[in-house]
């Protein structure tokens, strides 16, 4: 298992798309450091040959037939939009 000190808060906050204040960085670093240290005890567990559990009660082939149903009227689709124009959602310019 990686070491708690491998944790790079700036990099991860960047991936998560959350700006952090300097104060938050200090606080989170210490709090998450504690949590990661606690989590590191999972290292003690021998998991050789153990299958991972993704679902408590796995079943397969849960699907629906391809039948088109009515969707949301466009005004409902846009009702909660912070900004809209021409029946579309407005976002600030996407800079590649």
């Amino acid at each position, binding site marked *: 298992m990686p070491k708690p000190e491998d944790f790079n808060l700036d990099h991860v906050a960047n991936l998560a798309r959350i700006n952090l204040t300097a104060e938050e960085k200090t606080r989170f670093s210490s709090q998450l450091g504690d949590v990661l240290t606690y989590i590191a005890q999972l290292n003690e567990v021998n998991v050789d040959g153990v299958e991972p559990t993704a*679902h408590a009660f796995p079943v397969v082939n849960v*699907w*629906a*037939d391809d039948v088109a*149903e009515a*969707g*949301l009227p466009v005004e409902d689709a846009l009702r909660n939009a912070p900004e809209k*124009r021409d029946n579309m959602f*407005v976002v600030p310019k996407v800079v590649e």
Partner: protein
Amino acid sequence: MTYETVIGLEVHVQLKTRSKMFTRVAAGYGHPENTLTDPVVLALPGTLPVMNKDALDKIIKAGLLLGCDIAPVCKWDRKNYFYPDSPKNYQISQYDQPICRGGSVEIELPGPARNVMGEHKRIALTRIHLEEDVGKLNHGEGASLVDFNRAGTPLMEIVSEPVIQSADEAFAYLTALKTIMIYGGISDCDMEKGQLRCDANISIRPVGQEALGTKVELKNLNSFSFVRDGIAHEIRRQTAVVESGGKIVQETRDYDGQTGTSQSLRSKEMAHDYRYFPDPDLMPVEVDSAWKESIRSGCPELPFDKQRRLLEQYQVPYTITSVLVPDGELSDYFEEAARLSGKPQAAGNWITNDLLRELGASKTPLSASKVRPAHVAGLVKLVEDGTILSNAAKEVFIDMFHSGEMPEAVLARKGLKAETNLEDLERWCAEAIAANSKSVADYKGGKESALNAFKGPVMRAAKGKADPKRVDETLRRLLAQ
């Protein structure tokens, strides 16, 4: 130094389903903005995905047609990245357990001439997986507008091995892939509607070198010819860079088909880390042999297999098959007409020349054509047995195309039936022979072409309604007496 090119293509194909991949609102193209959404498409809080069975059927069909191994079990993964066209900011996709692996696409390279079959080869596939499409961003002044109609459409990603060697091969690969998808009813692959999209990874290396060169990803290849032109352009660009002592930079470039130029997409220096993990909202898919077999039983004959069969079974020329085969419906139409008429080549000529010309001119789809295989077969028979002459037959065809009447009915209505009164014909031939003793002598002296001198007067006498074959026969018989 000579260089060789190595190309791998990633092709995205939208599946032709009624509803979306993970929710049942309708999928479609050309609808007013944001009218094909529901709470799931918009990723409203609390919504959950449910798989579309038909999309699974269709990707399995694609896999079977391309000779892939169908995984007995596959799962869904979340590919996490933020982008305004992605409602959940993750895409449901398949990461390490795609539903199809391996397989290949048979392609035909351009032949030495248009009427000669080109070389065939197989392009190996790495994998095919299923995922969901994203919405559409419209870039405006200082802002972008997002339409989520396309979001959630079932999307198949077909990844080739890096084994394509030229722009022509890439073009042939896409063409073959498209034909197979259309044959299978899997997708219409209309690039203008975004139903097929293609990215190319291109590198060059000195001939003989084993290691691959630095690859460049080419995006926005949004028509078949842009794919060919864009790749050709990139190969020239890379060759020029290397030959002038430069180095290829690993990058993504955007090809502009209008200007025939490409430019680097300067992406922010933010490493991609998609944080794939199994989607806990979806259960795995298990494909047993019964399911596979039921799909296999509905698989059509592959286009190139059909072409080989048409060539063999009907003895028609390559040029006819190369027109017929890309269109499965047209090939079926041909086979029906060939069967009904017993004259495949004649039927093939009518279909690939006259029928396609009229359909094209009137923008009529084949399915709406009033001329059915029985019409074509009827016309072929009338020409064969001399009831009608070929120029009159052309007129009959156009009439049938508009009226939908059977050729006999058109003939009767228009009075275009060829003259079959044998007594008249005998008389006209005898008169023509009697009137031209010089040509009789020439013919009897071994000059075969002298026969033509009698035909003009006979045809004139018959007002053009005599069957040339019968005229020919009658003249020879009388001259031999």
